[in-house]
């Protein structure tokens, strides 16, 4: 391993550098030269007034109940979305890993939501919730269904966002789980079966532990995705009703581009960044520890 690594070292770098350069240009440079310095400024885009604010933006943020409400909302939909999409993604991947007919087609069908733009996804689901379900309820005579106002209360509006987020993310996570399941050596499964480990126990004690690297990746993707949630909630509810489904990213957007307080918006995104970095690092620490080497 080590010898190979040395031999091919320069090729590794050659593969990494183009992507890293793009990444640095598009993200690191704006962040260190833009967002972080801006967060210490009082900068109103419209009036053009700009002055050094020290840590005032951060102090103001501590008592900004709208931002923290949005942040907590991220966490609450995040938990549901992360657990829901990972569990369902794994279950689908598990069953589609068995030899069933047309599984390639079925996998593709599950993956499609992932490649449709979030705005379109939201449009489709809004139509389902607001038009199709009430019509269905009327035809079937199900008053309980017809009387649910899907976007009329914070609870149901959150539910629609969670459901749609899960539906959208499931395909991607499923593909990664599928790839992971296929790396589990057949002989280990065989050996397990001979020793009488079958069904759920086979999944629990053999496949899942060997899937830990995949789980690490998927949790990482879905956790950071949950904190960044913007497009689906924005297109589904636009934060409504009554600002109850506003996510932190939407709040940052409003601060910077509706209220035009760029400095304060930048401070909010630095805080969001620090929070995501902290949570994902903790997650990496714990899931990495449970990874087993073959």
């Amino acid at each position, binding site marked *: 391993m080590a010898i190979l690594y040395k031999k091919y070292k320069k090729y590794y770098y050659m593969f990494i550098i183009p992507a890293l350069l793009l990444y640095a240009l*598009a*993200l*690191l440079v*704006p*962040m260190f030269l*833009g*967002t972080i310095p*801006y967060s210490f400024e009082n*900068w*109103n*885009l*419209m*009036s*053009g*007034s700009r002055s050094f604010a020290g840590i005032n933006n951060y102090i103001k943020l501590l008592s900004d109940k709208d931002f923290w409400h949005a942040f907590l909302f991220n966490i609450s939909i995040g938990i549901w979305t992360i657990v829901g999409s990972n569990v369902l993604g794994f279950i689908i991947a598990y069953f589609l890993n068995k030899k069933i007919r047309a599984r390639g087609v079925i996998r593709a069908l599950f993956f499609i939501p992932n490649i449709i733009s979030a705005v379109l996804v939201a449009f489709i689901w*809004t139509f389902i*919730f*607001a038009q199709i379900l009430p019509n269905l309820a009327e035809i079937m005579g199900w008053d309980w269904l017809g*009387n649910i*106002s*899907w*976007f*009329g*209360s914070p609870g149901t509006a959150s539910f629609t966002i969670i459901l749609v987020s899960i539906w959208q993310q499931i395909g991607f996570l499923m593909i990664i789980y599928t790839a992971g399941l296929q790396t589990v050596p057949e002989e280990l499964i065989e050996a397990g079966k001979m020793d009488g480990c079958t069904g759920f126990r086979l999944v629990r004690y053999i496949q899942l532990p060997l899937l830990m690297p995949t789980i690490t990746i998927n949790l*990482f993707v879905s956790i*950071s995705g949950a*904190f*960044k949630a*913007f497009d689906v909630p924005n297109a589904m*509810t*636009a*934060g*409504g*009703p*009554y*600002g*109850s489904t506003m996510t932190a*990213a939407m709040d*940052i*957007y*409003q*601060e*910077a*581009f*509706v*209220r*035009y307080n*760029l400095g304060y*918006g*930048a401070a*909010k*995104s*630095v805080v*969001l*960044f620090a929070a*995501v*970095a902290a949570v*994902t*690092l903790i997650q*990496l620490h714990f899931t990495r520890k449970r990874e087993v080497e073959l």
Partner: protein
Amino acid sequence: MKKKRLLAAGLAAMMTLSLAACGSSGGDSDADSGSGSNGKVKLSMSVWNGNWAEDLQAFEDDFNSKNEDIELDVTMQTGDYSDWLGASTASNDLPDIYLLTPYAQVQSFASAGRIMDLSDEPFVDKVYPQALDAGKGADGTVYAYPANYEYLGVFYNKTLFEQAGIESVPTTPDEFVDACEKLQAAGIQPLGSTFKESWTLKHLFSALLTPFVQDDIPGFIDSLNSGKGTFDVDGIDQVFDFLDIVKEYNVNNMMDQDSTAGYNALANGEVAMLLTGEFSLATVAAADPVQEIGVFAMPVSSDPSQNKLSVDVGICYVINAETKHPEECKRVLEYMSNPDEEGGYMQLVSSDPGDAMPAMPFDGGAESPARTDYETYVDAGNTIPWVYQQYAAGFDVESGDIVQGYMSGAADRDTIISELNEAYQNYITE
């Protein structure tokens, strides 16, 4: 190895940060464009997106064919216009001519010295006097060409009203309730909704509030901007009473209805009334058969003389104060504000149903029963502006979100009023 992991995790998480980092990029840097190689003066113009791409192209072609020394380039910003505006302002990258929203935005750009004084331009004598206010700076000087008049009101189905035996349009809340009762008795759904989208509630709340502050709008706005004002004005109870009527006679699950659903319900004759603006008429005209939709002022006040049609300027054209070609820019505005220009801007952008009409007397443009009603109000001077356009910039969006709380039943009137008052404080810039 551990360091690498930290680095990798850190890098990936940084992606979340890119949101507010785009302040210094974007925007076409055409403001400093000079003369082209063909000897023509190049002018850049930016407008927001909408279903007017074809009209804009035709306008650009028409203008350039009539003005051989100028090459006008009209760009429709495809993304969010306010993002683009903020970014271009921050990087001092604004085009020669661009669009602003009336009142607050024009005033803020004027006081920052970004836009040109237009008080001697020909349009000043052509547009309706009230419309001119929309393009004035805080000092009362005209800085913008108010290019259109939009209107908000109760859009109603004349046929369904006849079927229900309603002889004249309601002018007070009591008459409005009567009309709703008659419609219900005739098996017709009285009202439709667009309330899933909070911007429609920003419109509605503004249209209901303005009648009660119409006598002194500058005073009302000044008091808000001084931080001492309140939305608890005389008549605010009638605003909420009217919202209660709107809730009572609305469709089931009205909070699930977005603007598309609302316009469709009106256009297909499923509802007799929708509280909306002239922009809904495009959907109405596309339906088959086309319903006969008129408009009347929202009857919010029990004093019918207070209820007027909400008519205000929707877009304002301004000239960059730093343009190198002020005279040519002014020629563009003169062309745009000329109602007799055959095949010109004004005729192009008002030709489709649902288009707003120019803010001046104009014979062309798409006809509709609603337009006829609207003109009756305008000719009688029976109109009020949209007060939300004069709020401190940005508050209008939040006002819709807050009023959505009342419509969804999440908050009572006192909470809504105090939240409006508190939220306004965040938008006051000293």
